[in-house]
Every structure is written in structure tokens, then in C-alpha cells.
């Protein structure tokens, strides 16, 4: 009898325990992730996207072959593993099995692909689509080292020779020449797999009807108002206990252009994540000590000077512009010390960063002397063009006052992001605010992309800087595979650029994110808040 009682009690305990465990698991499921975007994402088409707002949307809907972990190392995503040949020119990717495109989208409408499995052929098609001259992808050149790229772009061939499907789950990519950061470029949000049926079906409207393999599928996009996504029930990823991911039912990104408004909405719990503008920084840190995340970001904030335009065609003027400002004090007083003063171009957490780089320190006398030498002893007037944002305005107003001290009268003009970028890309603005955050973790993404003379214009060299020695060094480092030699080449190149000063080097970004205390598993990516993922985030509220 006693035995029976014990066994009954044991069974009861077991049942209760089990159901509690099950409860805890199922508890993670459900809920709508409520988030805010500061501006309407310009693009949902991965092939056309160049900015962080678009990237944040695309990373939820689409997936790349590889991705970065939170420390900035490459890890598998849709490729389970890969082999690299001796000569570092052939990459063989072993694809994950059981990855399906979204079967439904936009309120349950079936997609053109029908939710079929992703195979190596899809990757071949996608790479051809992105690099096709007809697609006009502004980011295709990130992979211009793939064999046959030029021939395909010029129309000499009708396909990209270097990308081949070996079998259903094996993809081979052959490069024209070795390119050390190649894997890193593949983690960029343009190089995702896309279903050809849906891309072809929508044609020009594909941007408004994205279909991918991501943890969430597209629901709706009300311009300048809200973007909605819902759970992909066929998602391939499982959590450690084998439970289907994602936990969240849906994602909702409201466009809230004003940081003050965003902060208010966060405080009353209407959004779960927010950008924290400088005025609220100390409050936020104090009130949310456990869920305020901050990391040094691979990014640089600068004022570009168009070296083709007066007075910036004179190196001494450009150097004076760098000596005239007190970066440390501006960051300390205006930004609560949130960023790192920039001595050069390469951010401190990136490979190749040069600790010994001297850079420019605050020296108004030297600035005045250089200006006088260049024939501007009475200073000059120049307009700084920047994209509308209170943060940029705060920095501009502080630096404007410092330039006034050395006789430079800086007028401010703000434009919306689209028009600003457009005028900067066309080389119309003489003096402009700009920032760059890494697309892949390598100095190539900064030095080659932003300052090589081949990339003058929309490709990234907005200052229209051109220096033969710099070009040679950055080209050499692209091909070299020995990390030590690459590092030396990049540091030499950076030194030249700092000496020539096509930019006013201001600061290296710190990325941050503030989430609600009841958000679990949120991880701030090393690349910046815009790369955050919600596939295993859950809400305990």
C-alpha cells in the first residue's frame, strides 16, 4: 500500500514536473515583437540595398551562406561547411539540407515558388541575378573577384562562369585571384538566396514583395508607417532542445522619425527596442542597467571634403580642417563620451588597426598657420551638408563653433538622407557629413571601397580622393593572402590617406541597443544594431 502511494506520488510529481517543463518551453512561444525604425527603409530588395535600415529588414526575411557571430567571426548559416582550395581561389560550400523558401506571404497568399527546398541551383541563379548588368546592383562589385565577372558584366558571356552547382547541395565558387575577405563579403545582406520564381513574377515590384528563407516572412509594408512580418512555420532552425524556431509570432517595425518620441514609446512599453539619443543616455543606463547593450562598432564617422573642389583641393586646408577640432572634448561633452575619437580610418576593433597612428590632435594654431600658408589667412566660408538628424546637427553645431575659432565660417545645410546621399555621390557637395559601417570585417571594406580611385562616386569614394601609391597598396592587399603582409600594406595605405586628409576624421562608432527587461536572448551584433536577429528571441511578459 505504502509502495503504491509512493509510486502514485512519484508519478504525480513527474507529471507535474514534466508539464511544468513543457509549459516553460511553450511559454517562450508567441508575442509580437514591437520595434521602431528611424526612417522608412529605402529597399527590401537585397540586390539594391546599401543602407542599414534596409539591411535590418532584409536580415529577417533572407539568409546568406555564412554569417558573423557576436564577436565578428564567420560562422555557418545556409552553408553548413566549406572547403577552400590550396591556391585560395576555389570555395566549395556544402549546403544545409531542408532549407525552404517561404511558402506563403502577405496574409497567407501562396508564393510562386510554392515553398520548395533551396538547392545549389538557386544560389547559382541568385549570384547570376545579382551580378547581371540588368539588375544594376550597387553592391555587385563586392564580389567582382569571382571568375568571369567582367565578361558577364560586359555581355561577353551570358552567365557568371565562376559560380557552379556541383550537385544538389554543393556549390562551388571560383575566384579570378585570391581575395582574403571573400567569406566576409558573402555575409553582406545582398548575397542572400532568392527564389527565381518570385523575383521573375514581380519584376520591378519585387522590392515590395520580398520572399526569402528567413525566420520571418513578409506581411505588409506601409510606406513611412510600418513594416510587418510573421513567423515562418517551416523555418529550418531549431533551438538547443530541438524546438522549432522562431518563438515570436510576428515582427512589427514602426517608423518613428523622432528619437524623443521613440524614447517615450519605449518608456510606456509600446516598443521593445529603441535607439537612445544623447539626451536620454544617462537616464537609460541608470534605469535599464541589464538590458542596455553597448559595443564598439566597426564604423567611422567623418566629414568628407571633395578634393576636386576649392578650397579642399589644397592639402594644407584639409589638414587644417583636422587640426581645428577638439574631437575628445566634443565626444565627452556633447555625446556623453559614447564614441572613440578617430585618428584615422580603420576602426579599433578591426583587423589592421594601427595603434601607433599619429593622426591629428587639436591644434588651432597649427590650423591657422596651415590656412595662412595656403593663402586663406582670413579664413573662408563653406557649407556643410548633412542628413537631417538631431544627432548630426548637435555634432555639426559644436564643430561649427570650433571652426569659427580659426576663421572658417561653416554654414549648415540639412537634406533628407536620400537627397543627401545622391548629391554626395554625384560629387556636388564640397563638404559633407558621412559615416561608414563595415559590410565585412576587413580594412578592404574601408580603404579600398572608400578611397581607391576606381570607386570615385556612388561606389563609395565620395571625397573623390585619388593617390597612386594608395591605390597600389590597397590593390596589393586585396590579392595578398599572408595576413602580416596585408596588415602592413593597409597600415601604409592608411598613413597616406591620413596625411593627405580627404576627410575630417571624427570618431569611431559605438553601437548600442536598449531592450525591455522582459526580452530574452537578445544579442547585439558586433556589426551594429541593424544586424540584429529575432529568430530565438522570446518575451516573458
Amino acid at each position, binding site marked *: 500500500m505504502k509502495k503504491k502511494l509512493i509510486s502514485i506520488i512519484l508519478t504525480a510529481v513527474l507529471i507535474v514536473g514534466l508539464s511544468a517543463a513543457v509549459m516553460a518551453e511553450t511559454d517562450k512561444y508567441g508575442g509580437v515583437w514591437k520595434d521602431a525604425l528611424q526612417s522608412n527603409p529605402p529597399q527590401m530588395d537585397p540586390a539594391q540595398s546599401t543602407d542599414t535600415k534596409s539591411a535590418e529588414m532584409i536580415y529577417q526575411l533572407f539568409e546568406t551562406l555564412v554569417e558573423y557571430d557576436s564577436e565578428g567571426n564567420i560562422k555557418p548559416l545556409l552553408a553548413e561547411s566549406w572547403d577552400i582550395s590550396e591556391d585560395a581561389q576555389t570555395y566549395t560550400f556544402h549546403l544545409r539540407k531542408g532549407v525552404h523558401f517561404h511558402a506563403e506571404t502577405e496574409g497567407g497568399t501562396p508564393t510562386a515558388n510554392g515553398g520548395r527546398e533551396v538547392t545549389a541551383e538557386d544560389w547559382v541563379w541568385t549570384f547570376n541575378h545579382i551580378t547581371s548588368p540588368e539588375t544594376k546592383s550597387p553592391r555587385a562589385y563586392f564580389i567582382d573577384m569571382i571568375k568571369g565577372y567582367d565578361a558577364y558584366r560586359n555581355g561577353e558571356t551570358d552567365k557568371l562562369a565562376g559560380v557552379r552547382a556541383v550537385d544538389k547541395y554543393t556549390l562551388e565558387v571560383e575566384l579570378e585571384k585570391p581575395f582574403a575577405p571573400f567569406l566576409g563579403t558573402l555575409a553582406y545582406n545582398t548575397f542572400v538566396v532568392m527564389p527565381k520564381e518570385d523575383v521573375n513574377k514581380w519584376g520591378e515590384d519585387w522590392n515590395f514583395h520580398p520572399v526569402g528563407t528567413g525566420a520571418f516572412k513578409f506581411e505588409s509594408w506601409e510606406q513611412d508607417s510600418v513594416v510587418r512580418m510573421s513567423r515562418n512555420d517551416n523555418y529550418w532552425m531549431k533551438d538547443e532542445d530541438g524546438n522549432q524556431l522562431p518563438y515570436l509570432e510576428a515582427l512589427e517595425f514602426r517608423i518613428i522619425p523622432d528619437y524623443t518620441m521613440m524614447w517615450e514609446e519605449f518608456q510606456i512599453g509600446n516598443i521593445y527596442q529603441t535607439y537612445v539619443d544623447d*539626451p536620454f543616455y544617462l537616464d537609460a543606463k541608470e534605469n535599464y542597467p541589464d538590458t542596455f547593450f553597448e559595443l564598439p562598432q566597426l564604423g567611422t564617422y567623418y566629414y568628407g571634403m571633395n578634393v576636386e573642389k576649392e578650397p579642399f583641393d589644397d592639402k594644407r586646408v584639409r589638414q587644417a580642417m583636422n587640426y581645428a577640432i577638439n574631437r575628445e572634448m566634443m565626444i565627452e561633452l556633447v555625446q556623453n563620451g559614447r564614441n572613440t575619437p578617430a585618428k584615422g580610418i580603420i576602426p579599433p576593433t578591426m583587423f589592421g588597426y594601427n595603434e601607433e597612428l599619429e593622426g591629428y590632435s587639436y591644434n588651432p594654431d597649427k590650423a591657422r598657420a596651415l590656412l595662412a600658408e595656403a593663402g586663406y589667412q582670413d579664413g573662408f566660408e563653406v557649407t556643410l551638408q548633412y542628413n537631417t538628424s538631431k544627432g548630426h546637427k548637435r555634432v555639426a553645431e559644436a564643430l561649427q563653433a570650433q571652426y569659427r575659432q580659426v576663421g572658417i565660417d561653416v554654414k549648415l545645410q540639412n537634406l533628407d538622407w536620400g537627397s543627401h546621399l545622391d548629391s554626395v555621390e554625384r560629387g556636388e557637395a564640397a563638404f559633407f557629413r558621412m559615416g561608414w559601417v563595415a559590410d565585412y570585417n576587413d580594412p578592404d571594406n574601408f580603404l579600398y571601397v572608400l578611397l581607391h580611385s576606381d570607386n570615385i562616386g556612388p561606389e563609395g569614394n565620395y571625397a573623390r580622393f585619388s593617390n597612386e601609391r594608395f591605390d597600389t597598396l590597397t590593390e596589393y592587399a586585396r590579392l595578398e593572402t599572408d595576413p602580416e603582409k596585408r596588415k602592413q600594406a593597409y597600415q601604409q595605405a592608411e598613413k597616406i590617406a591620413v596625411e593627405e586628409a580627404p576627410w575630417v576624421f571624427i570618431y569611431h562608432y559605438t553601437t548600442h541597443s536598449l531592450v525591455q527587461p522582459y526580452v530574452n536572448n537578445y544579442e547585439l551584433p558586433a556589426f551594429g544594431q541593424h544586424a540584429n536577429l529575432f529568430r530565438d528571441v522570446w518575451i516573458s511578459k
Partner: protein
Amino acid sequence: MSDKNLNKKSNLKSEGLKETSDTLLKDSWRKLKRNKLALVGMSIVILFIIVAILAPYLTPYDPVEQLIWTEGAAVKLAPPSADHLFGTDLYGRDILTRVIYGARISLQISIAAMSISVLIGIILGTLAGYYGGIIDDIISWIINVLYAFPFLLFVIAIVAFFPPSLILTFSAISLVYWMSIARVVRGQVLSIKEKEFVEAARALGVKDWKIMFKHILPNIIAPVIVQATLGMGSIIMIEASLTYLGFGTQPPTPSWGYMISAGQGYLAQGQWWWGVFPAIAIILTVLGFNLFGDGLRDALDPKSR
């Protein structure tokens, strides 16, 4: 009531007109003096103008000099104190000084914008009212079309198109504000041109422009003054809204609207002084112009004795 009209009519070609204006002015001033609220409004307006004109003599600080670079964090967003009566902003600038200089910017823009509006409004309004017919149709049509635009959006559209400057700001405002003056003028001209003294002038063969300029204009000036005074308040608001939204005058020029927008973020953090003082300045000034304008209307209206 008919007394005055008789007077006017009989002295059409003499100095009688001037005499009537004189009595009208005296009359109005007596009425205005009795109106307490109007006097308060007038005092505010006068104070505002004096402050704007004497700005450099009223404060020891420079409106754009940023003290943080020399004095450090102590003057960053410092609360009101004996040194800085309204406190300082993020850059250590004295907020009282910036409010005072802000009055200057506001006054410059509103006077310039109002002068242009009045000029355009009187010319087009008189032409429309006097000639009627197709001229009236065209001018009224333009006014109605312009009225159909959302006011502020229209100004923003103009301002956003060109590089920012003071001249652009007041030109854009006057480009959309003239029609409220033109409407008033047109209505007045319509009723006055039927009056006997105008008909008499016409019968005597006086030229059109002379009738409009010498006989009609002096009789409509009172309502135009009222409309312009009331409009000053609106224009100050428009200018502040523009700079609040980031258009119009640019930093470091001290502008009330921009101060509110920059200080807004710090408002809830306890550093209220950056945004609140310029807001008070705007409220007071607009209120002043409105009270004064209302009082003027009552005082200048010959029907309310």
C-alpha cells in the same frame, strides 16, 4: 453717423480728408486707452521691439559663443543662476542672451515678411476690387488656389528647395501670406468704390490710379493695419515652426523655434530651461500682437463708438 460721410463728400478735393483722419486717430487712441487688454498687448509689442533693437546692450554674452570649450562641463546645461538667469544650453551658451537675440531674428523676419505681404496684398487687392470683372476673377482665383494649400507645407516646400537663408525665409512666408491682406483689401475696395465720393471723383474725370491711390487707399488703411498687426503673430509662429522643423534660419543663428526643438529632448530629463524660455517668449509675443491687433480693430472701427 452720416455726419462723417457728408463731411468727406463735401470736402472731397480739400484737406478735409486729412482732418477726418486726424479726428479718427484721436478718436481711436481714446478708445484704445480704455481697452486694458489692448494696452497690455501694446506694451508687450513695444517691449519686444525695444529688446530686439537693443539686444547687444542688454546682455554681456555673445549669442553664439560656446563656453564649454573653455569652461568645461560646468557650463553645459547649467540651470538658471545669477550668472545665467535662464541657464545655459548644451554648448554653454547663455539662454537669456539667445532669447534676446532670437527676438531680433523674429522681428526682422516678421517685419520683412509682413511688409512684402502688405505691398503685394494692397496692389492686387485694390486692382481686383476696383476693376472687378476678369481681373478680379483671375486674382481671386489665385488667392483661392493658394488658400487651398496647407499653409505651412507650402512654405516648407519653398524653403526646402533652396539653400537656407534669412531672405529666403521671409520671402517664402510673404509669398503665402499676402493673400490674407489682399482679401481684406479687396472687400474694402468693393464697398468703398460704390461710395458717392468715389463716384464723384470718377465723374470729374480723375484718373483710375489717382482714385485708387488718393481716395480709396486712405480709407482702407485702418483694416489693413489691423490685419497686419494680427498677422505679425501668425508670422512669428510660422517662422518658429519652420526653424523647429529644421528649415529656415540655421544654427548658430539664435532662433526661438530651433531652441525649442534642440531643447525638447532634454525637457523630460529635468533640463527644462533650454526649451521652456524660448517657448514663453513666443507665447508672450504672439499674445501681445493678438491683443494689440484686437484692440486696434475695435478702436479703428468707426461703427463702434
